[in-house]
C-alpha cells in the first residue's frame, strides 16, 4: 500500500461521518417514506397501465416504464439501503434491515449476509471478495487467464440481462451449494439445505407473482401483463447491473491481496474502500435511481449512513482524498461505463 498517513485519514473520515450523523433524523425518515410512497405509485400505476395496452399500446409502454422505475426504486434506493441498516435507527417495524425484503429473485437475508459482510468488509481483496468479477469475469491480472474469458463479454451481457438471478445464484455461493466446490477458511454460517431452500422459495415466489398471478388477474390481457412484467424486470436488471459494474469495475479501480490487508488499521480499511470503488456524476433523479450507488466511494466508506446524505459529504471526502493524494475516481456515466466495457474486453485476453 502507498504511504498515506492512515491514522490522520481515519480521523478525518470519522469526523465527516460524525458530523453528518448528528444531522440524521426527521428529514431522512421523511425521505425514505416518501420514496416508498413513490415506489408504490410507480409500481401500481405501471401494473394498471399494462392492462390498458389493448386500448392504447402507448399506455402499455408507459406502464412498462413505470413498473420498471417502481422495481428499480424498490431494489436500489429502498431495498439496498434499508437492508444495509441505513434506517435501523428509525425503530420502524417495517423499514429496517431485519424486516425488509425486496422485490427481486435474491433472498434478502442471503444477500445481506454475503454482500454486507464479505463484499463490504473485504472489498476488492482477491480471494475474499467474491463480488470482484462474480466468479464469472476476469477483470484483473490477479486471475489466471482461461479460454472461457475470450467470450466473457457475452457472459457479461447475459449476466446483466439475468442480473437478479445472477445475484441470487452468486449470493448463495451456488458453486459450493450445488456443485460441492470447496473453499478454504470458510465456515458455513447457514446450511446448504437452508440456502437452497431460500434460493428456490424466493425465486419461485417472484416467478409465480410476475408471470402467473398478475397475468392471470388480468384475464384476457394475460399476455400484455406477462410481457410487461418481463420487460420491466429486464430493464431493472440491466440498470442495476450497469450501475453496480460502474461502481467497482471501472478502469482505475484497484484490487488488493490478502497479504496486503493483514492486520489492517481503520485508515487502511478506508483507503482500500476508496480505491476499490468509483462514482458517477449525474442529476438528483439519476442518483435516486441508482440508490445513490453513484456515490459508491462514500457508500463504501460509510455503508450504513442514509444514502441520501452521500452527495452532501462527497465534497468533503474528495477534499480529504486530495490532501492525502488518493485518487477520487469519478466521472460521467458514459465515461465510467465505457471504461467498464474496456476492462471487460481488455481482460478477455491474456
Amino acid at each position, binding site marked *: 500500500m502507498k504511504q498515506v498517513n492512515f491514522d490522520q485519514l481515519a480521523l478525518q473520515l470519522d469526523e465527516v461521518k*460524525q458530523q453528518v450523523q448528528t444531522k*440524521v*433524523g*426527521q*428529514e*431522512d*425518515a*421523511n425521505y425514505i*417514506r*416518501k420514496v*416508498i*410512497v413513490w415506489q*408504490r405509485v410507480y409500481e401500481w400505476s405501471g401494473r394498471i397501465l399494462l392492462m390498458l395496452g389493448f386500448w392504447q399500446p402507448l399506455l402499455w409502454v408507459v406502464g412498462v416504464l413505470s413498473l420498471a422505475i417502481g422495481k428499480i426504486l424498490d431494489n436500489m434506493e429502498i431495498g439496498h439501503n434499508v437492508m*444495509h*441498516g441505513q434506517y*435501523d*435507527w*428509525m*425503530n*420502524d*417495524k*417495517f423499514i*429496517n*434491515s*431485519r*424486516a425488509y*425484503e*425486496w*422485490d427481486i429473485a435474491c433472498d434478502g437475508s442471503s444477500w*445481506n*449476509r454475503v454482500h*454486507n*459482510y*464479505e463484499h*463490504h*468488509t473485504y472489498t476488492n481483496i482477491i480471494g475474499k471478495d467474491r463480488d470482484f468479477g462474480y466468479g464469472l469475469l476476469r477483470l484483473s491480472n490477479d486471475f489466471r487467464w482461461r479460454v472461457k474469458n475470450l467470450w466473457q463479454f457475452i457472459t457479461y451481457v447475459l449476466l446483466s440481462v439475468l442480473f437478479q438471478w445472477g445475484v441470487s445464484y452468486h449470493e448463495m455461493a451456488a458453486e459450493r451449494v450445488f456443485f460441492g466446490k470447496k473453499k478454504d477458511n470458510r465456515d458455513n*454460517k447457514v446450511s446448504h439445505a437452508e440456502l437452497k431452500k431460500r434460493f428456490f422459495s424466493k425465486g419461485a*415466489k417472484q416467478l*409465480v*407473482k410476475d408471470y402467473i*398471478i398478475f397475468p392471470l388477474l388480468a384475464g384476457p390481457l394475460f399476455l400484455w401483463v406477462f410481457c410487461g412484467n418481463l420487460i420491466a424486470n429486464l430493464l431493472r436488471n440491466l440498470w442495476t447491473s450497469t450501475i453496480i459494474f460502474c461502481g467497482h469495475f471501472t478502469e482505475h479501480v484497484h484490487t488488493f491481496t490478502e497479504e496486503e490487508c493483514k492486520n489492517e488499521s*481503520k485508515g487502511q*480499511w478506508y483507503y482500500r474502500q476508496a480505491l476499490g470503488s468509483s462514482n458517477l456524476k449525474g442529476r438528483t433523479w439519476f442518483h435516486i435511481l441508482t440508490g445513490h450507488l453513484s456515490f459508491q466511494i462514500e457508500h463504501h466508506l460509510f*455503508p*450504513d449512513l442514509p444514502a441520501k446524505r452521500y452527495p452532501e459529504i462527497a465534497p468533503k471526502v474528495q477534499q480529504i482524498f486530495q490532501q492525502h493524494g488518493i485518487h477520487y475516481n469519478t466521472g460521467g456515466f458514459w465515461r465510467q461505463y465505457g471504461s467498464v466495457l474496456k476492462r471487460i474486453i481488455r481482460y478477455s485476453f491474456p
Partner: protein
Amino acid sequence: MQNISRFISKNLFHHKDLTGYFEPVLQVFKPSWRSGYFRAQVKSIRVLCENALKITLKPERKWPIHTAGQHISLTTEQQGRLISRVFTIASGAKKLKETGLIDLVIRTHDKGNFTPYLGELAMNSWVNISEPMGEFIFDEQSNHTTLLAGGSGITPFIAMLDDLQANTQNHIHLLYYAKPNGHLMVEVLEKFMTALPNFSFELLHRSGHGSFTKYVSVEHTEELLVCGPEEMFVEAGKFCKSRQIPIRAEHFQAIRPTQSVNEAARFKVKLNHGDLEVSNQDSLLSEFQSHNKPVTYGCGMGICHQCQCLKKKGIVRDIRDGSLSDNSEELIQLCVTQAVTDLELEL
C-alpha cells in the same frame, strides 16, 4: 381472513403483512397511522410544574375504553425515531365517554431521550398509543382502602377517584409522597375531597415525615394500593406481609446506568435461549463468544450488521462514540456495544 391476507402479502408484496406494505402510503392521508398501534391527537399540553406536564389526548374512536388505573404505551416520533414509553392514564373512563379525551401526567427528565421532547409536540399533531393494559384497578367492594402514591405514581389514583361516584360507601385515604412542593395535581385532589365525602388525603415527604408505615391505619385498611418507585413498592410489600393486609401494586422501574462506564461491572443478559452474565469492559459479541453462545457475526467492526439483534430492554454503550442507547426496544450491533445495565436480547 388474516391468514389469507398474510399469505398474499408475503407472496405478492414481500412484506410480513399488507399493512406494512401500504403503511407509508396510508400515512400520507392519516398522519402517524401505524400497523398495530392506535392513533391519538394531541389536544392540550399544560405545564404543571417545573418538571411535570399534563398532556390531553383524543384517541381515535376505535380505541377501547380503559378502566381507571390502566396504562398505555405512548409512541412519538422524535427526530425521525420512534420511541415508546409507558404511562398510566390520569383520567377516568367517565371523562373519556363524555369528552373523548384522556389525560397523561408525565414527569419530565432533562437528560431523558423522551420526556424533554413531549412539551414540543404540536397541538393537533398525532401520536400513537397502545390499547389500555394492566390489572391495577380499583376494587369497589372493599370498604376501606388506603392508597399509597409516590411522585408521578399519583396518576392511576387520580383516574380511579375521577371515576368514583359521589355516593360511594368506600372510605379512601390517600398517602401521597413526593419531594417538598413536588406534589402533582393537588387542586384536583382537593376537588375530589369536596365531591367524595369519604375521601381524604395527606401530602407527605420522606425527609420530613419518614416512612409511610406510621400513617397507614391498619384497622381501616382492607386493601393497600401502591403506585410509586421501586423502594416504596418493596417496603409496602414487606409491611403488608407483616400486617397481613392485601396489597396491589403498580411500579415502573426506571432503568438508568448505575455506575460510570469506566468502572468494571457485570450485568445480567436475558436471552431467548438462556441467560448469562457479561462484563461491561468488552463488546457484547466478545462476551457472548467467550461464553460459547451461538451468535452470528461478520466484520467485528460495526460495518456488516451481521451481529445485529433486537434489544428488548436495557441500555448499551456504543464503543465507537461512547453514546448511550435508549432503554426501549431497538436493534443493536453486538460487536460495537457494551452492556451498561442488565439487558434483555433476542438473538
